[in-house]
C-alpha cells in the first residue's frame, strides 16, 4: 500500500464491510434467479401448449421465456449463496423474490394485451399467493396457454412457500412454525437433510396433484380442465377454467373429489408424508392439530348447514356445506354458491374460517390452526394465573410445550395481521369508489380478510359487487398488496423494509435524554 491512499492500519480487515453488503445482495440474487428459472421453465411449457393448441399468444410466452431465462442465467452465474446468511438478508431475499415472481407472472398477461396493467398485476399476485380472486370474468375466453400459466403460477407459488417455510427458513417462523421446526407432530421435519426433505415433501405435493388430476378425469371432467383444476386444487389456489368456478360443472362427483383434495391440501405435508409413506395412519389422528383441523371442518360445515338449510335435499345440503367449509378453511376459494347468496351467519363463519386457515406446514393460507391453538393455550394459562398468581406453567399445544418467545411471536404475528386487516379494510373502503357506499363496509372488511388469508371469495354485500373485477385501480392494487403481505406475513415485510430494531423497540423519540437518570 503506497502513501496517500489513507489506508487503515490493517488493510486485510477492511474487506469485511464489502462482504456484508455483498451477502445481502447475493441472497436476494440467488432467490430471484431461482424464481426466474422456475418462471422460464413454466413459460417454456406454456409456449409448447400454446403452439400445440392454437398459437395465438405464443409471443407472450416467448418474451417471458427469453426474459426469465436471461435473468436466471445472469443472476445464477454471477451469485452464489453465502455460507452463512443473516436473517435480514434472508428476509430481504424472500421479499424481492416474491416481487420478482409477481412481475414475471404478470408479463404474459401484459404482453398479450388481454388484461389492463392493474388487472394483470392483480392476477399475477393472486396467482403467486394462491388467492382465487380473479379479474377475468370468464376464464373460458383465455387460451390454453394462459389458463395453464395462471394455474401453474398458483401451483409453483404454493410450492415456493412450502419450500420456504418447511425447509429453507424454518427459523423465520413464517406459517406458524417455530425455530426448531417442532411445534406439533404435524410440523416435524421429515428428514435430517434439507435436500431429502424437499424431495419427500415434493413427492407428496406432486402425488396429490396427480391423484387429483386422475380423479377429476375419472369423474368426467375434460382432460385439460382436469389438469388445471388439479394444479389449483392441490395448491389451494382456486383459479378455475369457468366463470362459475367449480359450481359451473354442476357435478356432485367433481365436488366430492374437490372436497377430498382440498382437505388433503390443508393437511400438513410432513404429516401427510409420514402417513402415506410410512403407513403410519395412527400419526394422523395422534396429531392434535389434525384433530383440531377435522373438528373445525366439521363445526364450520354444521354451522353452515344450520344457517343455509337443506332446501335442495339433505345430501345436497350436506355436500354444499362440506364443500363451503373445506374450500374456506383450506383457503382454496372455489365456490359453488356465492357468499352473498347464503345466510349471513353462515357467511360469517366461513369468513372466520378463511382467516383461521388450515394446518401449519400445509399449502393453505390464513393464520394456521396451530397458532390459534397456541393462543387458546395462552389465554387459558392467563386465566388460571389469575386464580393462582404464582403459577409457572408453559403454554401447550397438545403435549408439546411451547417456549415463551414462540408464544409471544405467534401472538405478535396475530396482532400484526389484525392491524393489517384493519388498515387494509379502512384503505379499501376509503379509496375505492365501489366500496364507498354506506352498505359496502362489510365488503371492504371481507375483501381485506380474504386477501390477507389468500382465500378468495368475498362478495358478501350483494350481487352488485364482484371482487375484484368491480374494483377500481387503487382498490385492486391495495388488495394485491394485502395478498402479498398476507402470504409472506407482516413481520418479514417490516424487517425487509428496513423498519427494524431501534426505531420499533421503544417508539420514543431517540434524542430525548432520560432526565431522571441524568440527575
Amino acid at each position, binding site marked *: 500500500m503506497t502513501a496517500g491512499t489513507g489506508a487503515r*492500519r490493517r488493510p486485510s480487515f477492511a474487506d469485511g464491510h464489502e462482504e456484508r453488503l455483498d451477502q445481502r445482495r447475493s441472497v436476494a440474487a440467488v432467490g430471484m434467479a431461482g424464481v426466474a428459472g422456475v418462471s422460464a421453465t413454466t413459460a417454456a411449457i406454456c409456449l409448447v401448449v400454446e403452439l400445440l393448441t392454437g398459437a395465438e399468444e405464443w409471443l407472450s410466452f416467448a418474451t417471458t421465456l427469453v426474459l426469465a431465462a436471461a435473468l436466471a442465467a445472469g443472476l445464477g452465474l454471477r451469485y452464489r449463496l453465502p455460507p452463512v446468511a443473516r436473517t435480514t438478508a434472508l428476509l430481504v431475499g424472500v421479499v424481492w423474490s416474491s416481487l420478482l415472481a409477481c412481475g414475471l407472472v404478470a408479463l404474459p398477461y401484459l404482453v398479450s394485451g388481454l388484461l389492463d396493467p392493474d388487472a394483470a398485476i392483480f392476477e399475477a399476485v393472486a396467482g403467486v399467493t394462491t388467492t382465487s380472486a380473479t379479474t377475468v370474468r370468464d376464464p373460458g375466453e383465455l387460451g390454453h396457454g394462459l389458463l395453464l400459466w395462471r394455474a401453474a403460477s398458483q401451483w409453483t407459488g404454493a410450492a415456493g412457500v412450502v419450500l420456504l417455510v418447511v425447509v429453507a427458513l424454518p427459523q423465520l417462523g413464517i406459517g406458524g412454525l417455530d425455530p426448531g421446526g417442532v411445534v406439533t407432530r404435524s410440523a416435524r421435519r421429515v428428514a435430517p437433510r434439507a435436500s431429502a426433505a424437499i424431495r419427500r415433501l415434493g413427492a407428496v405435493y406432486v402425488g396429490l396433484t396427480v391423484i387429483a388430476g386422475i380423479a377429476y378425469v375419472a369423474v368426467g371432467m375434460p382432460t385439460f380442465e382436469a389438469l388445471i383444476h388439479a394444479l389449483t386444487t392441490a395448491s389451494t389456489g382456486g383459479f378455475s377454467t369457468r366463470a362459475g368456478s367449480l359450481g359451473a360443472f354442476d357435478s356432485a362427483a367433481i365436488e366430492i373429489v374437490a372436497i377430498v383434495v382440498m382437505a388433503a391440501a390443508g393437511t400438513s405435508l410432513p404429516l401427510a408424508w409420514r402417513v402415506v409413506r410410512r403407513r403410519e395412519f395412527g400419526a394422523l389422528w395422534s396429531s392434535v392439530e389434525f384433530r383440531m383441523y377435522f373438528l373445525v371442518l366439521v363445526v364450520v360445515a354444521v354451522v353452515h348447514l344450520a344457517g343455509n338449510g337443506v332446501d335442495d335435499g339433505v345430501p345436497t345440503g350436506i355436500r354444499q356445506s362440506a364443500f363451503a367449509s373445506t374450500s374456506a378453511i383450506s383457503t382454496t376459494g372455489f365456490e359453488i354458491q356465492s357468499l352473498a347468496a347464503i345466510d349471513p351467519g353462515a357467511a360469517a363463519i366461513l369468513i372466520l374460517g378463511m382467516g383461521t386457515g388450515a394446518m401449519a406446514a400445509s399449502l393453505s393460507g390464513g393464520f394456521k390452526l396451530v397458532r390459534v391453538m397456541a393462543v387458546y393455550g395462552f389465554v387459558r394459562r392467563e386465566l388460571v394465573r389469575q386464580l393462582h398468581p404464582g403459577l409457572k406453567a408453559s403454554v401447550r399445544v397438545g403435549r408439546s410445550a411451547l417456549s415463551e418467545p414462540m408464544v409471544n411471536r405467534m401472538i405478535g404475528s396475530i396482532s400484526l395481521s389484525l392491524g393489517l386487516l384493519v388498515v387494509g379494510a379502512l384503505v379499501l373502503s376509503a379509496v375505492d369508489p365501489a366500496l364507498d357506499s354506506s352498505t359496502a363496509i362489510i365488503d371492504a372488511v371481507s375483501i381485506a380478510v380474504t386477501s390477507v388469508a389468500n382465500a378468495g371469495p368475498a362478495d358478501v354485500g350483494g350481487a352488485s359487487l364482484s371482487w375484484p373485477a368491480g374494483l377500481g385501480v387503487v382498490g385492486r392494487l391495495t388488495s394485491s398488496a394485502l395478498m402479498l403481505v398476507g402470504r409472506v406475513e407482516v413481520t418479514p415485510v417490516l424487517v425487509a423494509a428496513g423498519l427494524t430494531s431501534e426505531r420499533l423497540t421503544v417508539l420514543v423519540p431517540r*434524542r430525548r435524554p432520560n432526565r431522571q437518570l441524568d440527575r
Partner: protein
Amino acid sequence: MKRVIVVGAGEVGSYVAERLSREGHDVVVVEQHRRRLLELGARLDVLTVLGSGTSPSALSEAGLEKADLVVAVTNVDEVNLVACLIATQAGVERTVCRLQAKELRGAAGAEVRRQIGVDLVLDPDAETAEEILQLLVYRGASDIAEMAAGEVILIGARLQEGAPIVGRTLSDLGMEYAPQWDFLFGTITRGDQTIIPRGDHRLEAHDLLRVVCKRKARGEVLQLLGLERTALSKVMLLGGGRTAELLAERLVQRGVRVVVVDRNPDRCEEFAQRHVGPLVIHGDITDADLLVEEDVGGFDAVVALTGEDDANILACLFAKSQGAKETVAVVHRLSLLPLLEEIGIDAALSPRTASANGVLRFVRGDVTAVATFLEGEAEVLETVVHDGTEADGAIVAELRLPKDVLIGAIVRDGNAEIARGRSQLRSNDHVIVFAMPHVVDEVKRVFG
C-alpha cells in the same frame, strides 16, 4: 512522603497502592480476603492488614492515627463510607471514597459526604465510561484526555501511513504552523522507547504520538495524524456492566444508536428496563454466530467491556475481521496492552488507570489533572504555578527543568495557549507538563 491507608485490595485498590508506593509513599492495605492480601504483599512494598474496612480495630492496626490519607476503594459503597467515617473521626485529614450510587455522588448526597468527611469521590466505572466516550468521539486515537476543563486536549494516536506529516521534522512543522501554534508533540513512542522529542526529530509512520492541542484544533490534529473523522451513528457495546450502562446513556444522549450484548439474562432484563434507547441482546460476546447475526461488521465502533480480558480481545478481533470500523477493548491486565495494537485492536484501556489517576492527583495536592498512558512511561500533569515559586514570572526557555520534562500548554483565565520557548509563566497559570515519572517531584518543586 505521606502515609496512606488503602481499604480494599481489589483491582482499583491494588493499582492505587502500587502507584503510590512507587512514588515513595508509605502504603498500608486493609483487605479482608487473605489470599488477595498475601498476593499483594508479595508483589509490592506495602504493609498489609487483614480485616474489614468497617472494623475500627483493623484500621487502627493499620495506623489510622498516623495516616495522612485514607483511600476507601472496595466495590461496596457502604463499606467505603463507613471506612471514611471511622477515618474522619480518628482525625485523618483527608479521605477518598469510591462511590457507585449516583445519588450519593450527586447533589443529593452532598450533605452525607460532608458529614462523613469525604474529600474526593471516585467512580472507576464512570471514569472508564468517560474515557471510552472520548476515544469514540476521537476515533482512531488510542488515548484521549481532556485537561484544563476541556480547553486543552491530549490526543494519543499512531501516525498513519500517508499522513501529511510523515517524514518531517518537528522544527520543520513548527515553522510551517507558526505563528499560530495550536498543537505540540509531547512524546513519541517508537518501538519500546518513549522519548520527549527535540526539534530535529523526524516523524515516521507507526510512531505513537501524544499531541497536546487546543480544543478547536482537534480536528486539524486528527487530520494531520492521518485519521479519518466520520460521524458516529451506531455503536455496539459488548458487556452490559455498569460502565456499559453509563456509556450507553451518554451515547444515546448524543443520538447514537446503541446495541448492548450481555451474557447474563437477568442483567439484560435490568439493563433493558432501565434504559430506553439501547437495544439489549442476550448472548455470549464471543459467540461468532450471534455477532454475525447482529451485523457486528456494520457498526461504527465496537466496545468490549466485560470483566474478562480474553473475551474482550477475541470479540474485538472478530468484530474487526467482520469490518467494524473501530474497536475498543477494556483490559484489566496491563501486561497485555502492548500486544493489542499489534494484533489489530484500535484502542485499549484499563479501568484501573482511570481511577488511579484521580487518587494520584489528589495525593500530589496541587496537580489538578493527570493522565498516564498504558504504554510508555511518560505522564502528563496539569499543575498550577504558585506565587513566589521558581516558575512564577519565568520565561519557559529559561526555566531550569530536567531533561525529561516538557511544558505543553499554558492556560490563563480559561484561555489555552500552546507553550513556546518565549512564553512567560505567571502565578495561577495552569500548566500542562509532559514528564517521566522519576522527575515528577522535581516538577512539583519548580511550580510549587
